[in-house]
């Protein structure tokens, strides 16, 4: 720093008016008083979701739509499953009736041939 610069630097700047101190500090303090209260801390799960609330909301909405569509669309086996107990019962009864009638018919027409011992079967074969 040369002499010229030193001479300038020695020139004392004007003093800040003393009356300003009280007003400025009062204004600053009022800023603290009027500062909005800090937001209450969010729960952990919300803190985790918070960075992308719109994205998470969209994802939730998509799931709701998918679920609604799934519930509204009738499945191919939906009608069968809806009346399954009644159908099964009638089917069993029907099959039982068919089986009973079949057995009865078989008993009436051809009596069961008695199975001969193996030795007699050999005799029959030789005779033939």
């Amino acid at each position, binding site marked *: 720093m*040369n*002499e*010229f*610069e030193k*001479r*300038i*630097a020695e*020139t*004392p*700047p*004007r*003093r*800040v008016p003393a009356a*300003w*101190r009280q*007003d*400025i*500090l009062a*204004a*600053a*303090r009022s*800023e*603290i008083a009027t*500062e909005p209260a800090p937001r209450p801390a969010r729960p952990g799960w919300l803190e985790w979701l918070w960075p992308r609330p719109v994205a998470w909301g969209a994802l939730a909405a998509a799931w709701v739509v998918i679920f609604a569509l799934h519930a509204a669309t009738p499945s191919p086996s939906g009608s069968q499953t809806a009346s399954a107990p009644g159908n099964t019962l009638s089917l069993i009864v029907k099959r039982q009736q068919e089986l009973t009638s079949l057995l009865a018919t078989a008993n009436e027409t051809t009596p069961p041939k008695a199975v001969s011992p193996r030795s007699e079967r050999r005799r029959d074969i030789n005779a033939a």
Partner: protein
Amino acid sequence: MRESLEELYDGHAQALFAFLLNLTRNEADTRDLLQEVFCKIARRRDLLDDARDTRAFLLRTAHNLALDLIRRRAARERKHDALAGESPAVFEPADDLDERRCREALAAALAELPEEQRAVIHLKLWEGLTFEAIAETLGIPPNTAASRYRYGIDKLRERLRPIYGELR
């Protein structure tokens, strides 16, 4: 340990006042800006907690606020020439007549400098900052700070030569 607002004011208001008055050349604007600096600090004390150098941080805040005001004022009024001619009392009044003339001439010469040169000269001469510290405070490269200082000092020397004739 965190300083109270009163301690901050007592420790730094004078430097901020002189800097802001030299930049704005307007006492009412200086008062508004000084108040704005302390209101900002009151609202966001955490900003000051993160600062390495309190004085440098306050000067930077004051400079940014002053720049905003000067730009708004320039756009609104376009009174640069009239502003330069105002030369408000930025220095303490002197009892000696010659010294008073020197101070008035210095204030007028400073007012003719572009704001960016005036800011660097103020921080160098009256705050005693290095070019690195000035650069950090004003957000400019150190070389830019040094060149602005040299240009500004050359202009002051030229302007004040008739009065400061004996000083080279």
